[in-house]
């Protein structure tokens, strides 16, 4: 198990390194200079600035500086345009909590709803309950979260006035929570549907399995057998779809943040690209990559931890 763990972590580090290198290449190979957009600088000043930041050195030398700064000193540079002269992790650090908060809450809300709906759909398989739930599953999986976002914003916030139209970042207490309701709801639909669909499939398979027949034969009621045997087995693989869902919601959150004017990482990414703030862009890309890679790592490891039957390496604990 430890060997496998280190293998996976090594793979993660290598992938991050590749992304970092590609990001470096993309930015340095782009035509034009970072200072092109700033017309108040004379050619001489640009030259001085470029020399200061080693922008006229050969690519490989620049790459060494780049890696040295990031890996040895942990210095990711300062923002150039979005918040000039502020270290990028400080800029990012002020936005990450907002984004993570929205995403995490919507995932936490989605799970019990999805699980309940999935159980109902499976137990009442091929009845009206099942059909209604399946209809909503298709609807929620298909329609993008930003459509739900717009609908909620127009009807619940604008027409009915139940909630604030945009996210209230400066508000405290109730005002702030109320403004979080709509973005979170918009992000919740898709994970609910995914959990429901997956759990329904798993549970139906388990309900018709032979150990259920055995459980009934030895005298358990249908309810006891379902709760004690089928459900337990169905929940095992659920963890493996819930964790990667976090990355999905994070992507959807980019757009929902735009709709509700949430000052999160999504808006920051777009702003940094549009203003050529490359140091900031790289930091955001690494943030996204790190989250996505860590979720993949957790899933890979949890396969073995949660369900010993699929443990890799022939079941040995090396």
């Amino acid at each position, binding site marked *: 198990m430890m060997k496998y763990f280190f293998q996976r972590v090594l793979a993660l580090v290598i992938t991050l390194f590749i992304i970092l290198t590609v990001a470096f290449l993309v930015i340095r190979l782009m035509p034009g200079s970072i200072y092109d957009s700033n017309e108040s600088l004379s050619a001489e000043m640009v030259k001085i600035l470029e020399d200061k930041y080693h922008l006229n050195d050969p690519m490989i030398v620049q790459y060494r500086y780049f890696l040295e700064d990031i890996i040895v000193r942990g210095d990711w540079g300062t923002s150039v345009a979005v918040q000039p002269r502020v270290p990028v992790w400080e800029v990012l650090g002020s936005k990450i909590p907002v984004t993570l908060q929205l995403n995490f809450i919507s995932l936490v809300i989605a799970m019990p709803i999805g699980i309940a709906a999935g159980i109902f759909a499976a137990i009442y398989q091929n009845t009206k309950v099942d059909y209604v739930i399946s209809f909503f599953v298709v609807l929620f999986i*298909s329609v993008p979260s*930003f459509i739900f976002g717009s609908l909620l914003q*127009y009807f619940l916030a604008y027409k009915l006035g139940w909630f604030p139209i945009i996210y209230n970042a400066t508000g405290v207490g109730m005002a702030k929570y109320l403004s979080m309701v709509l973005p979170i709801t918009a992000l919740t639909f898709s994970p609910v549907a995914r959990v429901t669909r997956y759990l*329904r499939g798993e549970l139906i398979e388990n309900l018709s399995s032979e150990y259920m027949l055995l459980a009934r034969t030895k005298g358990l009621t249908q309810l006891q057998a379902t709760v004690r045997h089928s459900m337990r087995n169905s929940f095992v693989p659920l963890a493996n779809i819930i964790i990667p869902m976090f990355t999905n919601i994070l*992507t959807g959150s980019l757009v929902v943040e735009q709709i509700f004017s949430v000052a999160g990482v999504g808006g920051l990414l777009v702003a940094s*690209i*549009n203003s050529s703030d490359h140091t900031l862009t790289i930091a955001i890309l690494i943030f*996204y*990559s790190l989250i996505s890679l860590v979720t993949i790592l957790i899933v890979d490891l949890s396969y073995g931890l949660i369900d010993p039957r699929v443990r890799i390496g022939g079941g040995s604990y090396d």
Partner: protein
Amino acid sequence: MTNSINGIPYESPRPAREDDFELLQLGADLKDAKFESPPIGFFKDATLRLAKNKAAVAALVIILVVSAMAVFGPMMTAYAFDQQFVDYQNMPPRIPLLAPLGIADGSRVLENRRADGLSDTEKYPEGCILKVMNRRTVNGVEMVDVKVDYYRYSGCEENFLLGSDYLGRDLWTRLWRGTRVSLFIAVFSVVTNVIIGVIYGSVAGYYGGKLDMVLMRVCEIIQSFPRVVVATLFIMFFGTGIFSIIMSLLISGWIQTARLVRAQFYRFKGREYVLAARTMGVRDRAIIFRHILPNSLGPIITTMMIAVPQAIFTESFLAYIGLGLKAPEPSIGVLLSEGQKVLLNFPYQSLFPGIVISALMISFNLFGNGLRDAMDPTLRGT
């Protein structure tokens, strides 16, 4: 002459003659009927099952209708997708057929107007006032909300079926043109992905061994690049546009197909018919594409159908955060993001692209599920 085995004598058998045998069933008529219908192959079987799935058939019809509109829709109006009518911005939708029902009749409610100004024909051309509502007195002045025929009110001679946008461009033309662009991006990227994935997966699965291991490690690394990051890097390097979007869809999109095809090859490459073909000297390429690959056609088609809505989503998602196509080219995502900016004032500008993208996504998902059930009934309902 007598023969003996182990001293036991036996009579040598007389050679068989023809009249020893009697053909019992020579005159009997066969009871089993001859097949009168032509044989049903895998795809015909799947089609029959698919035709019974009402939701999938309805989805297919919607897909076909939307695709047809994407081709012919822009030709139905006299306007080009980038033609601007600067005087007629944000016109409400007016569809002559629906107008008598009070839907999309080109009317708009103007709020807080002075009641005494209503008779002014300069401001309110004759016949443009449909309804006067909500009479009230504010600071001694009588105020009303008035519902006007906005086309008469603004003296607009044009007829915008779905209204016009903030530059006075016809939204009907832009909507279908945008649908065309979105569908093109989706179909092009999915087809390319399948071609790459099939070749990659076939090679990995057929040859196996070290080559397979290396190819699969490459897959794993590429797959762990988050899509947002890949798209961002492409857009930074090549700028926004159709090329960056398609490329970002191509980077990791083929991996799913490659894995699927590889798994199918592992299943079939040890079968006797493959061994027979190899014994007869069939070349690798022919074994891969003629003998093994057709077995995985069903799952490949299903994956394609599920990948199309994902591609449509990615395109509109990128457009929505402002990394979409270059103006004035529309796509569903571009229209949605333009509509979002004026959502509270002119909701119809988001409504129609929203309906089209939702209909497309739902239909492709339903049709994809239907196809999967039809081609592999054992997977039904999962």
